[in-house]
């Protein structure tokens, strides 16, 4: 895009914001401008206040949270707080991250009508506007559907549609694709591209992993951990020349700018073929709906395995069956050469760990220390052993300074580490992870994968559910593709990338290194 003249649309002057006092504010003395028709990417580590900033920009904060702010935000050269209540929100629409907490009505039709009612659209015009908008986003057939029956990608499209009905000048996208499967992510990005030119939108995009968005981005803003504006400028210059500073701040660098792109995991030829866990003809239904049909699976000792497939394919269900949290309707499972059903509960939990998607679900006690010591106490170890082992784990996971804090008060990355640490009081034989990197920033994701690799090296078999094909490519020995109730592929990740048709059906993508190669068209031998 070339711009003859940049018109300032939204500008921020010496702006600071915090939920309590401005002594050490969350957003610290920001100055920047959004220009008409441009797409600006805002990046920064977790906790740098990116989401709060977007709510400040559309005038909700500080009033909605009784926070404090200084400085000024001007929209079309008029201070934001001079507008009437609800006025600025209409000019600056936001699509949020979580597809499940953006709606207040049951059906698509009513949700879209809710927006129109807010801006007092005459009733006679509503239906036509709703139909037109659904047509624009390509969801005509979903007008009367209940929102909760839609997929994550469809929900985000509806969230987008309901914001666009405001006919905003500025669209803020706050990690809109973070919770979507790879194909849905791409579809959403393509939709935004189409709409931007059609509706003449100025876009502010907040995104941890901006790889797929890059071609739409005109400019980058970088927030530091202290909530200060670190960089403001051209994409190329910042992502290339300031790369090291950004990495130090825990920011994901789009892979195409990385000097050394990630490599696939080399094949290790082990003679160890002893199975740790096997599943034979497992089937499972929920409410008369078949979820899994005739699943066979073997996990070899000490391997790292990924389970992939689109949202709702039954990946989590499969993991829950393996952990005996659900009972299959048919089939048998064997864990360490003993039928899973024969294991005593306590002994099973000692030998098999399970890390949930949301670490908070696993917390039981009031301090980080107790959290780690909990299972050991339960298993009747003596006090001294418990203390030594707990301190070891706290040190290892860099949680020793937080040992007397409440687990709920930890940062996102700390919570994630603690949830893993609680499973390691004794080295488990099998460790299951349900989408462990979901919605996490670069640093947390990296840390977690390092931890998992380390645990694997100690001989633990690891299984995790993920949408991130780069992780599969870099870390896994084996990958299982779950699609239409059954396993449609299992084998080395490098082999999976050769099956284009299957990848398409299961709504998967290739890892970055291959997508890039196909785009650039460089024939480059990667076989090891």
């Amino acid at each position: 895009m070339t711009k003859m003249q940049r018109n300032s649309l939204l500008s921020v002057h010496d702006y600071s914001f915090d939920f309590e006092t401005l002594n050490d504010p969350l957003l610290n003395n920001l100055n920047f401008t959004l220009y008409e028709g441009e797409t600006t990417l805002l990046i920064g580590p977790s906790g740098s206040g990116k989401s709060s900033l977007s709510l400040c920009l559309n005038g909700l904060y500080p009033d909605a949270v009784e926070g404090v702010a200084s400085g000024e935000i001007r929209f079309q050269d008029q201070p934001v707080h001079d507008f009437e209540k609800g006025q600025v929100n209409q000019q600056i629409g936001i699509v949020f991250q979580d597809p499940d907490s953006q709606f207040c009505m049951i059906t698509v039709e009513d949700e879209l009508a809710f927006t129109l009612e807010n801006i007092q659209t005459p009733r006679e015009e509503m239906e036509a506007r709703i139909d037109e908008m659904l047509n624009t986003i390509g969801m005509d057939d979903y007008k009367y559907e209940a929102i909760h029956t839609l997929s994550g990608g469809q929900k985000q499209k509806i969230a987008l549609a309901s914001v666009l009905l405001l006919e905003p000048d500025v669209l803020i996208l706050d990690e809109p694709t973070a919770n979507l499967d790879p194909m849905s992510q791409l579809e959403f990005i393509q939709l935004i591209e189409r709409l931007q030119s059609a509706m003449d939108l100025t876009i502010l995009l907040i995104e941890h992993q901006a790889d797929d968005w890059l071609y739409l981005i005109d400019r980058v803003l970088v927030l530091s951990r202290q909530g200060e504006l670190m960089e403001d400028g051209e994409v190329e210059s910042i992502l290339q020349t300031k790369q090291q500073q950004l990495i130090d701040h825990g920011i994901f660098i789009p892979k195409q700018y990385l000097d050394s792109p990630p490599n696939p995991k080399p094949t290790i030829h082990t003679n160890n073929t002893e199975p740790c866990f096997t599943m034979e003809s497992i089937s499972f239904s929920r409410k008369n709906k078949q979820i899994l049909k005739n699943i066979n699976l073997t996990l070899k000792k000490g391997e790292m395995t990924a389970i992939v497939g689109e949202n709702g394919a039954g990946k989590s269900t499969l993991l829950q069956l393996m952990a005996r949290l659900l009972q299959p309707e048919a089939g048998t499972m064997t864990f360490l050469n003993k039928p899973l059903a024969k294991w005593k509960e306590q002994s099973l939990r000692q030998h098999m760990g399970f890390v949930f998607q949301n670490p908070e679900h696993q917390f039981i006690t009031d301090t980080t220390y107790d959290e780690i010591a909990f299972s050991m106490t339960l298993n009747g170890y003596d006090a001294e052993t418990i203390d030594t082992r707990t301190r070891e784990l706290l040190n290892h996971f860099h949680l020793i300074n937080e040992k007397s804090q409440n687990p709920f008060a930890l940062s996102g990355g700390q919570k994630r580490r603690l949830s893993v640490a609680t499973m390691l009081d004794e080295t488990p034989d099998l460790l299951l992870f349900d989408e462990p990197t979901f919605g996490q920033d670069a640093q947390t994701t990296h840390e977690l994968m390092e931890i998992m690799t380390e645990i694997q090296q100690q001989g633990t078999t690891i299984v995790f559910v993920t949408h991130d094909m780069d992780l599969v490519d870099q870390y896994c020995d084996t990958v299982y593709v779950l699609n239409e109730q059954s396993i449609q592929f299992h084998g080395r990740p490098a082999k999976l990338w050769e099956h284009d048709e299957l990848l398409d059906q299961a709504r998967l993508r290739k890892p970055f290194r291959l997508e890039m190669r196909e785009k650039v068209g460089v024939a480059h031998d990667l076989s090891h």
Partner: protein
Amino acid sequence: MLPMISAINPTVKAIAVLIPGILLGLTFDVFTPLVYLLFIISVTFLLSDLSFKRWIKFFVPFFLFIASFSWARLLYTSETFQDGSVLFSFWAFEVTTGGLLVAVSLALRSLCFIALSLLFIMTTDSTKFMLSLMQQLRLSPKITYGVLAGYRFLPTFKHELEVLRQAHRVRGVGRAKGIRGRIRQFKRYSIPLLANSIRKAERVANAMESKGFTGEHDRTHYHQMTVTKRDWRFLGMMVGALFLAFVASYYFGYLNIFGYQVN
């Protein structure tokens, strides 16, 4: 032409169900609630396309509960109603005609409440009910849309509780034993559930306000909820039928209000 119940304005319908409910609470005889119960049931099936099977599935459990409750009531009737001849007696219990009438009347009144509630619940769309309360009774949009957003949370809440149970089971926490164990378990579940609910509620609130929601009444309505003549006819029919039952009851000499025989 009589209106279909599902098309009646939900607020008017609620009133049409509430008034007979309250007035019936005053009658202590058997005849009035019996007549009215028959009336409610016929209205339910004549004026809606509700399937009998679905209705009976809800009605029967209540029926059994009320039957057992009334049986207890029959045995422990207070002195005031212990008149009339003794019908039968066993152990230390004496069942009199007076006691029997009171117990049966209580059962019939309870069944009327149940039938009225089912009539309302099974023919009313919950969203439309809230919208109607806002449009007819000027309920604040803040509360209206707050409740509507709350509806959407219920299934997620259930799902989350399920995940929480699993997560704790993995950590080796078994089923709670004893009262203290239960209290501790409640605490363990409630903190993460509350923390998440508050976060989600805040997100929904932000999303709603970002779409221009102000909580004020100055908004247009996609579903215009109106009150028309047929809604009043329905209200009149529901209340009128009760008065007819009262009159008939009085005529036959059964009517008993608050324990006083009205004759």
